[in-house]
């Protein structure tokens, strides 16, 4: 699965993406975030304030309980500040 990072999340992790094989028991965004945090101290810090983390699954904005069983690309980013 492809994981993308943007803005200050990308900056803190010092990388813009990961390619990962997820364990079978990870079914939604919340579970994915917990698993990423458990494996990476930097992600744990970046995700500290959960409600600030916005998520897109296969180019669609979703909530943290969104099912990712068949997802190809998951993106994590801070609140958007365009326009």
């Amino acid at each position, binding site marked *: 699965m492809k994981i*993308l990072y*943007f803005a200050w999340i990308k900056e803190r992790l010092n990388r813009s993406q990961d390619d990962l094989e997820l364990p079978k028991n990870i079914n939604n965004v919340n579970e994915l975030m917990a698993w990423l945090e458990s494996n990476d101290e930097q992600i744990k810090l970046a995700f500290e304030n959960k409600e600030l983390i916005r998520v*897109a699954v296969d*180019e669609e904005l979703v909530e943290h309980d969104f099912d990712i069983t068949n997802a190809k690309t998951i993106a994590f980013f*801070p609140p*958007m*500040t*365009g326009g």
Partner: protein
Amino acid sequence: MAKNSPLVRLQAEIFDPAKEYNQFLKQNTGAGGAAICFTGLVRSNPDNPIVKLTLEHYPALAQRQLEKFANIAFERFKLQNISLIHRYGAMAVGEPIVQVMTISAHRQAAFDGANYIMDWLKTDAPFWKIEQSAKGKNWVENKACDENAKHKWKTD
């Protein structure tokens, strides 16, 4: 009368707001009674002058979201045409960042269409601003008022 559909352009290059508005108005068939052009500009801060603004973006999702907001506004406000341009990359103070243009038979629809697109774009289109000033680089924080601005478009 040809049926227009919203046009969305994502680009790094600067654009000329007046020239774009001129092009947009030229497409009017005579049925348009009211046109709006909104331009978002790089704004400096008197207390901490901005040297450069950079917009990072998530290209595929940005294009998709902008098209989504434009299409919803087009149908909801029965607009005759919409054109939306959003830049990414580095820009200087005074330069345009975004422009949304709407045209309709009546004025309130043109106002509402452009306002709707801007309100949604602010919080739900994947762009992130970094301001560079003498004090260094700073990721711009989102504002609660932008989140609240969307409430005025609730239908239920």
